[in-house]
C-alpha cells in the first residue's frame, strides 16, 4: 500500500470502478480525501492549495472537500454540483471513483455514476444509523445492478467504537437488502477522519474481524461479473481501407459486449439474420485468438454479407430477438416531465432510433419501494416502469443479463440533451 508501482508491474494491474454515495455531512469528501492521501495520490502543490484556501476561508482545519470541489461555483457555494471522477492506484489495482454528490439532485447523478461502477460505496453516519437516503442509495445501486456493495459505517469514533451500534446498523441493512438484488455485501466500521479501518486495521474495533476498506477494494473479484457466455458484438464502424495493400479488407469494428468470440465461430448478423463464420479477429496489426468484453477489436467474416453500424453479431443459436416494443425502467433526468405519447431519440448500443412512450406503468418510490400505478408522468429524478415503441427493432437483452445490451439513453430531439436513462426489463 502506498508504494508506487514500477514500470514492470503496471501493465498487469487491473481496474476497479466504484461509485460513492452518501448524504451531505456523512464524511464522504473526508473519506475520498483519505483514500487519495494514503495512496499518495495527492501531490504537494494540490495539498498546499487546499491548505491555503482553508486558511483564507477562516477554517481551522484543512477542508479536504476543497480538493474534490473542482468548480468555482462549487467552492463559492460549498456544495458539489455534479459527478466528478477521481483516480488513485495501489500496487495491485487502479481505481476510478465516480464521486456523486449527496444533495437533492441525487438520483440523476447517482444513476450516472453507478452506470459504470463495479462497486457501490454507501456511507452512513454511525450516530444517525440508516437514513432514508442510505436506503435510497442502496435501491439505486441494486437497480443499476452494481454487483458489489460496501456499507461503510463512518464516524465510529463518535459512538465510542460501539460494537452494538455497528451490529444494529449491520442487521438493519441486511434485512433491508434482502428485498433488493445485492449479490455481494460488505459492512465495514470506519472513521474516515482518523483513518481507522480505511487503510490500516483499527485497534479500536477488536470485535471486527473483516477486511479494511482498502483491502476489500483491492481484492474484491470483479472479472467474473461480465457475461462470457452470450456473444454480443454491436457493430460500431466498418473498416474499409480500399488501399493497394488492403484492397479487399472489410472489418467490423466494435467493443465486445458479451461472450467470447473466436475465429471459426458460426455467427449470425442481426437484424438481417444472415449467417457466416468468423474469419479472423484483429487487434491493430495483430490477429488474436479470441475476444471478450470489454475489448475493442475488428472482426472479419468469411462471407460478403451486408453489415453496417447498428447491426449486431451474435452466435447462431444464442441471439437477442429484434424488438420494437421495449419494457424498461427509466430514470428521468430533466425538468420537463416524461408523458405518454412523447417522442424521443433513443440510443441503444450503436443503434439510434426514435421511440414513443406508449404507457407509464408505475412510478417507483425509491424510499419505500412502493409502486404508484396512478401516475400520469415521471418528473425530474423519478424512476418508473415504461413501455416504449421504437421506429426500428433494437437488439436487446434484459439489463439483468447484460448491462451493455440492456441499457439505453433517451435524447430530447429539440435540445439534443440526454433526458433519460433506461434499463430494459424485457422486449416483446
Amino acid at each position, binding site marked *: 500500500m502506498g508504494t508506487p*508501482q514500477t*514500470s514492470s508491474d*503496471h*501493465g498487469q*494491474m*487491473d*481496474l476497479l470502478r466504484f461509485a460513492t454515495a452518501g448524504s451531505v455531512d456523512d464524511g464522504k469528501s473526508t473519506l475520498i480525501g483519505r483514500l487519495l492521501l494514503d495512496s499518495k495520490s495527492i*501531490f*504537494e*502543490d*494540490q495539498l498546499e*492549495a487546499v491548505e491555503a484556501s482553508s486558511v483564507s476561508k477562516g477554517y481551522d482545519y484543512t477542508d479536504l472537500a476543497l480538493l*474534490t470541489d*473542482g*468548480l*468555482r*461555483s462549487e467552492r463559492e457555494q460549498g456544495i458539489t*454540483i*455534479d*459527478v466528478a471522477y477521481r*483516480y488513485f492506484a495501489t500496487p495491485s489495482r*487502479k481505481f476510478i471513483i465516480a464521486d456523486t454528490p449527496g444533495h437533492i439532485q441525487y438520483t*440523476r*447523478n447517482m*444513476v*450516472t455514476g453507478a452506470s*459504470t461502477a463495479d462497486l457501490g460505496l454507501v456511507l452512513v453516519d454511525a450516530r444517525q444509523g440508516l437514513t432514508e437516503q442510505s436506503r435510497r442509495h442502496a435501491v439505486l445501486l441494486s437497480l443499476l445492478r452494481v454487483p458489489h456493495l460496501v456499507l461503510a459505517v463512518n464516524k465510529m469514533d463518535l459512538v465510542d467504537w460501539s460494537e452494538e451500534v455497528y451490529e444494529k446498523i449491520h442487521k438493519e441493512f441486511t434485512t433491508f437488502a434482502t428485498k433488493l438484488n445485492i449479490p455481494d455485501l460488505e459492512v465495514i466500521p470506519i472513521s474516515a477522519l482518523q483513518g481507522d479501518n480505511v487503510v490500516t486495521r483499527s485497534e479500536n474495533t477488536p470485535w471486527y474481524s473483516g477486511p479494511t476498506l482498502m483491502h476489500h477494494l483491492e481484492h474484491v473479484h470483479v*472479472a467474473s461479473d*461480465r457475461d462470457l457466455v452470450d456473444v454480443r458484438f454491436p457493430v*460500431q*464502424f466498418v*473498416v*474499409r481501407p*480500399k*488501399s493497394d495493400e488492403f484492397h479487399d479488407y472489410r472489418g467490423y*469494428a466494435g*467493443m465486445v459486449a458479451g461472450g467470447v468470440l473466436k475465429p471459426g465461430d458460426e455467427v449470425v448478423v442481426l437484424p438481417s439474420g444472415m449467417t457466416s463464420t468468423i474469419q479472423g479477429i*484483429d*487487434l*491493430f*496489426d*495483430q490477429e*488474436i*485468438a*479470441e475476444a*471478450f468484453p*470489454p*475489448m*475493442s477489436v*475488428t472482426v472479419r467474416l468469411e462471407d460478403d454479407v451486408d453489415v453496417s453500424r447498428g447491426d449486431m453479431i451474435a452466435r447462431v443459436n444464442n441471439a437477442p430477438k429484434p424488438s420494437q416494443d421495449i419494457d424498461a425502467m427509466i430514470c428521468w433526468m430533466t425538468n420537463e416531465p416524461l408523458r405518454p405519447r412523447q417522442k424521443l431519440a433513443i*440510443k441503444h448500443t*450503436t443503434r439510434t432510433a426514435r421511440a414513443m412512450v406508449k404507457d407509464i406503468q408505475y412510478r417507483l418510490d425509491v424510499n419505500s419501494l412502493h409502486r404508484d400505478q396512478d401516475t400520469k408522468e415521471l418528473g425530474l429524478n423519478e424512476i418508473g416502469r415504461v413501455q416504449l415503441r421504437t421506429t426500428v427493432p433494437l437488439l436487446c437483452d434484459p439489463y439483468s443479463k447484460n*448491462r*451493455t445490451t440492456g*441499457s*439505453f*439513453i433517451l435524447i430530447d430531439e429539440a435540445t*439534443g*440533451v*440526454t433526458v433519460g436513462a433506461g434499463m430494459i426489463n424485457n422486449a416483446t
Partner: protein
Amino acid sequence: MTQTHVDYQLSQLDQLEAESIHIFREVAAEFEKPVLMFSGGKDSIVMLRLAEKAFYPAKLPFPLLQVDTGLDFDEVLSTRDNWVQRLGARIHIASVEDAIAKGIVIDDGKTSRNRQQIGALLNAIEENGFTAAFGGGRRDEEKARAKERVYSHRDEFGQWDPKMQRPELWSLYNGRIHSGEHMRIFPLSNWTELDIWHYIDREQIEIPAIYFAHEREVILRDGMWLSVSDAVQPKGDEKVETKMVRFRTVGDKSQTGCVESTASTTAEIIDEIAIARVTERGATRGDDRFSEAAMEDRKKEGYF
C-alpha cells in the same frame, strides 16, 4: 496469434486502450467533420497511437489540427512531422501569429500565447466547420477537468458551461449538436499521467526528445527553470546556467518550465514520476498559476 487468455481479465492499460478506441470509433461514425487537436505533447501522441489502432489498416478518417503558437519547441515540430508522415495523415496548422496579423487575436503583450491559442483554435474550428474536436485532456490533470465529460458540449461561441453538462451513462455517448456548435471529445479522460507513460513505454512510440534528460541553458524564474531561447532571455540578475533537465509537459517556450533530471528512458521517467510529489502542471506550467480557477476560466472561453 497471441496466447489464449485464461481468466478473461484485461489489465487496466488494456481496458483504457479499449475504451479510448471505442470513443474514437464512435465519433468517427457519428460526426460529420471531426478533427484531432494536436499539440505535439505526450498526450497528443498517445491519442495518435490510439486513433491509428482504432481504424487500422485504414487511415485516420479525420485530419489533425495544430495551433502553432510560434513559440513551439523544434523537437516537438519534428516529432509532429514524423508522425504525420508515418500515418499519412492530413494536418491543418492554425497559426497564432497569423491570427494576430488578421486581427482575430489581440496581442496586448501581456496575455500568454497559451491563452491566445483560444482565438486561433476557435477560428480554425469555425472556418473549417469542424463538428467534433478530439483533445488529449485528462481528468487527473486539474480539478476543473475532473468534472469534464468525455463528450463536452461547446456552444456556437466555443464556450463550456459546466452546469449544463449532459449526464454520461454506460458507454452511450450523446453527440447531438445544433448547427454552429461543436463537441470536444476527450478519449483520455480516465488516463493518469502515469498511465500515459506506461503506455508510451509499452508501445515504444516516438515522443519529442525534450521529454528525456538533456543538457540545456536555463534560467530560474518564479521558481521554474525556463529554457533560454528567442522567447526567454535573462532579465535583471537572472543567471544563465547549464543543467541536465527534461520537460514534463510541452507547451510554448515562454511558459513551460523544465525539471532537473537524469532520466533518459521511458522506464526511468516512470520511476521518477511514480515518486514525484508535485503535479505536472503545478511544477512546470506558468499559465495555471494565475488564479485558483485558471484552467476552468480558460476552458469556459473555449480552451480545450
